[in-house]
């Protein structure tokens, strides 16, 4: 069984969002890292990139395949986790403790449209 963190909101494409005032901290769920297997590369945007909710912002790659990442919210990328360049496996080790990007949101109400832990758990069971 994969873990689901109560305090996060989720996109159906398996990204989690943790809100810190107007900044969305974004990662991928434990379910997603498990489905991907060993992550060997993470492709992230640049600080300053503008994202609309639903935009592709990068990819996480296992040996076998690349899996696109989609931004759950709109805004400006204010930080990317540079540690992942050398240690992409950190996501496998702790998916909820390893963020990918931070986005300064233009519309924080978008977060309310995302799934809560309970709804997301249902998606993972399907």
């Amino acid at each position, binding site marked *: 069984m994969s873990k689901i963190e109560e305090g996060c909101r989720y996109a159906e494409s398996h990204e989690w969002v943790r809100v810190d005032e107007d900044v969305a901290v974004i990662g991928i769920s434990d379910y997603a890292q498990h489905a991907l*297997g*060993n992550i*060997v*590369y993470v*492709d992230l945007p640049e600080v300053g990139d503008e994202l609309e909710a639903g935009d*592709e912002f*990068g*990819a996480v*790659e*296992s*040996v*076998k*395949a*690349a899996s*696109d990442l989609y931004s759950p919210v709109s805004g400006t990328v204010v930080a990317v986790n540079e540690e992942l*360049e050398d240690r992409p496996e950190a996501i496998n080790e702790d998916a909820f403790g390893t963020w990918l990007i931070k986005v300064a949101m233009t519309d924080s109400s978008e977060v309310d449209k995302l799934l809560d832990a309970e709804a997301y758990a249902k998606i993972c069971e399907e």
Partner: protein
Amino acid sequence: MENQMKTTCLHDKHVALGALMSPFGGFDMPIQYKGITEEHNAVRKHVGVFDVSHMGEVRVKGPDAYKYVSHIFVNDVTGAPDGQIFYGMMCYENGGVVDDLLVYKVNDNEYFLVINASNIDKDVAWIMKNAEGFDVEITDESPIYGEVAVQGPEAEETVEKVLGIPVKDIAFYNFKTFPIDGEEVIVSRTGYTGEDGFEIYGSHDYIRRVWDKLMEAGVQPCGLGCRDTLRFEVGLPLYGDELADDITPIEASLSMFVKLDKPEFIGKEALAAQKAEGVKRRIVGIELEGNAIPRHGYAVEVNGEKVGEITTGYRSISTGKSVAMAMIDKPYDKLGTEVEVRIRKKTFPAKVVKKRFYDKNYKK
């Protein structure tokens, strides 16, 4: 399209082992058990076993068997001793590849062809159609054979000790038939990993017993995931990636298997002309700077213009480098040519290299 997914004789065992299953060539196949990296390394360093029962087998028998095989196969089996195996392709008249295959010479009047799972129906139709006028009997034996591949530096010891089959004296690309439990089991020193190893063909029941013995002995089961990373690292082609009906063996940089000095074979005129004129594009190796991973279908560019496409790409498990095979237009196919690979929104600098990213370790 397949309405119903086919399964191999080992399907229930893969499921019981908890393998990640996925469709391949019309079959529900194991992609990985423990993980691609662990399975890949088991084969490079020790030994692993693959279920390759999805592969197709076709027997050609009769007084014209030699003449017929020579007609449909681009390689030359002339003068080969019984028990020898040839790699090569069947081509269309225009030089495009029907399939790549192994031809096992049983004797002058009998050959055993091993073809790709995804191409069984197409190949059998092609083989039948072109047999007209030849005194041969053709049988699709794919449904009756199971097959496992035992691969890695410890493969010989494993097959001898765990399965009790004396394979030491089988030379590379040769096979022997062993009477075991009332049937004829075929064992060849072949594989698709760049390591020493054996491929074992027998009834479904026999192959199930072989699998159980290997599992009991602790041999790592390996899925199609690492089968692809292993073959890729040593530059072996996969039909659908480096070979296709619109790619010739010359373009695939596999001319060494095309024997244009043979009197006749299907596709000879087209391939001879292509060889004489020179190809417009061919398969080469590509090495990327940095960590981004090139994948099948990504564009290869020079000065912003597309000059080719990635056919297979990985972060090489054995070397850690981001490498690929790609079909590249001339003149950008020359070793050392600087190109760029488009990966999502960015391009990454890369250069053309030899399409062998890891040295083969065959026992010849």
